[in-house]
């Protein structure tokens, strides 16, 4: 579809180029996307600027007032070491917002490469890769991640790697199915006749044409990455104390849930708002690109 103001002659030449602006317009008219995006933006701001906006030092212990209930001094109360819960919740946005996007990015890189190679070359390579993808996808992510992290070592970096490895098959499958359609198009034949190499055709001819499904997959994966990274933190398999990470905090403060529920409720609600925000935004992107 041509956009108003586009010269008629350009319509056939660059139909994909002009698609950018209406997508943005549709996104900005989608209330769910705006609400989700605002929540995510808030937490990104907190993750970047918690040193400025948090009322106290999130790591400063206060032996005189442990597990103090919410008050005008400590808006969300204090935890078992007397640390300010509000400050820790704000600072706790940083670990998950570093781990989840990193893991998503790596899984997109790995999955796109696998998907392009499998979809473009087909044959035995495709069969072997897809059987491997099926095997990894048949596992409930948390189980292999738990086993690997507990045996290999618990750290934020290992969480990123584990999530990236376990997510890339899903990305690979999406990319492959898009590549299967694109590789039959005439521009690919033209590139082949020109004598372009396989790698060039995959990454510079086909890849730009599968960006739509890739973007949708990326936003959906990001939601699952926050889910998984948070869960692995909760299982204490990732970042270690005294990090204010939300999942880790819930796990450690669980022991005080009866006398100080605010210590677990605040990080839990923070993570809930972030995942819902990411998913609403992802759903908005998917709808905008699908129309």
């Amino acid at each position, binding site marked *: 579809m041509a956009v108003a103001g586009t010269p008629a002659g350009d319509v056939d030449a660059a139909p994909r180029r002009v698609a950018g602006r209406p997508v943005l317009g549709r996104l900005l008219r989608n209330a769910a996307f705006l609400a989700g995006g605002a929540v995510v933006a808030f937490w990104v701001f907190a993750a970047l600027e918690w040193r400025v906006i948090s009322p106290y030092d999130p790591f400063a212990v206060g032996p005189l007032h442990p597990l103090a209930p919410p008050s005008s001094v400590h808006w969300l109360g204090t935890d078992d070491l007397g640390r300010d819960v509000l400050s820790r919740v704000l600072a706790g946005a940083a670990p998950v917002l570093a781990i989840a996007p990193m893991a998503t990015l790596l899984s997109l890189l790995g999955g796109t490469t696998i998907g392009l190679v499998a979809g473009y070359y087909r044959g035995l390579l495709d069969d072997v890769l897809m059987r491997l993808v099926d095997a990894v996808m048949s596992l409930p992510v948390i189980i292999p991640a738990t086993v690997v992290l507990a045996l290999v070592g618990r750290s934020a970096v290992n969480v990123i790697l584990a999530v990236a490895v376990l997510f890339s098959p899903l990305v690979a499958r999406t990319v492959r199915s898009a590549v299967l359609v694109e590789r039959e198009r005439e521009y690919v034949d033209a590139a082949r006749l020109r004598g372009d190499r396989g790698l060039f055709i995959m990454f510079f001819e086909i890849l730009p044409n599968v960006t739509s499904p890739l973007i949708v997959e990326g936003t959906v994966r990001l939601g699952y990455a926050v889910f998984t990274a948070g869960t692995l933190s*909760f299982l204490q398999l990732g970042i270690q104390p005294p990090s204010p990470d939300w999942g880790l905090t*819930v796990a450690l403060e669980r022991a005080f849930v009866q006398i100080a529920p605010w210590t677990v409720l605040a990080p839990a*609600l923070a993570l809930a708002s972030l995942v819902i925000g990411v998913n609403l935004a992802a759903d908005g992107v998917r709808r905008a690109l699908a129309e």
Partner: protein
Amino acid sequence: MARFLLRRLGLALPALWLVSVLIFALAEIVPGDVARTILGPYATPDQVAALRHQLGADQPVPVRYAAWLGGFVIGRWGDSMVLHRPVRPFVLARLGNSLTLALIALVCVIPISLGLGVVAGLNEDHPVDTAISLIGLSLTAIPEFVSGVIVLVVFGVQLRWFPIIAQPPPAAGLGERIHDLLLPSIPLMLVLFGYIARMARAGMVEVMASAYIRTAVLKGLPLRYVILKHALRNALLPTITVIGSQVGWLVGGLVVVETLFTYPGLGKLIYDSAVGHDVPVLEATALLVAAIFMLSNLGADLLVALLNPRVRYSD
């Protein structure tokens, strides 16, 4: 039907075998020596070597893999390195506990999510549909430990309706058991709800737009009859497949929920044995989970084949 079953098994068994290789390979990279771990730091090298020989740990890797897999199949699952007792009885007891928890969640969530998904599908793009879809999307996105801790605080700590630790006494009756396990099953239900409802909605939307439904409506059948007799059967087929795959995913949620509510189930056992490097328990539990996962998928495929002759007779 037998051919269909055989073909599905032919797909599932190699996958299960691959998983067993993965599990064994992972267990191999555990730092430290099995015999040294069992005997402690003060054992002499001779004692360690003797135990290694006795356990078969000095055998080559393929031999040990074959011995382990063969032992698992015939029910000899070895002894726990931490608890010093046979693995099988208590792994099976834990399995029973987890199945109870999972069953409560499934029995509650399947009718609710199917019902609401169908309602959403019948009211496509109306506010009812938007509300159900958005709520489902949001609930599915929330990690189990987050929703778990929220219901724990609300219903366990504030309202005191349920215990905050799910350990029903061995003598507990069925009613008491279900009551104690209701709280841990809620997070599992919330995650499943969105998936199942979304599939049911999509199936319903697709079927209601099809020609045979239009025919049924136009020939004057009451709408209720069209939906119950004509639409539901076809609309819910893909959903059954999803439910089958979700049963496996449930195990991932069990790890979290059982840890949060300190419930002695299979999920907590996987976690504890992985963290405690208790290799025999971990291997047996992980392979058992993989087998259950395959079986539930197989069961869903079979159910779909029973309900839909097209799946049965096509290749």
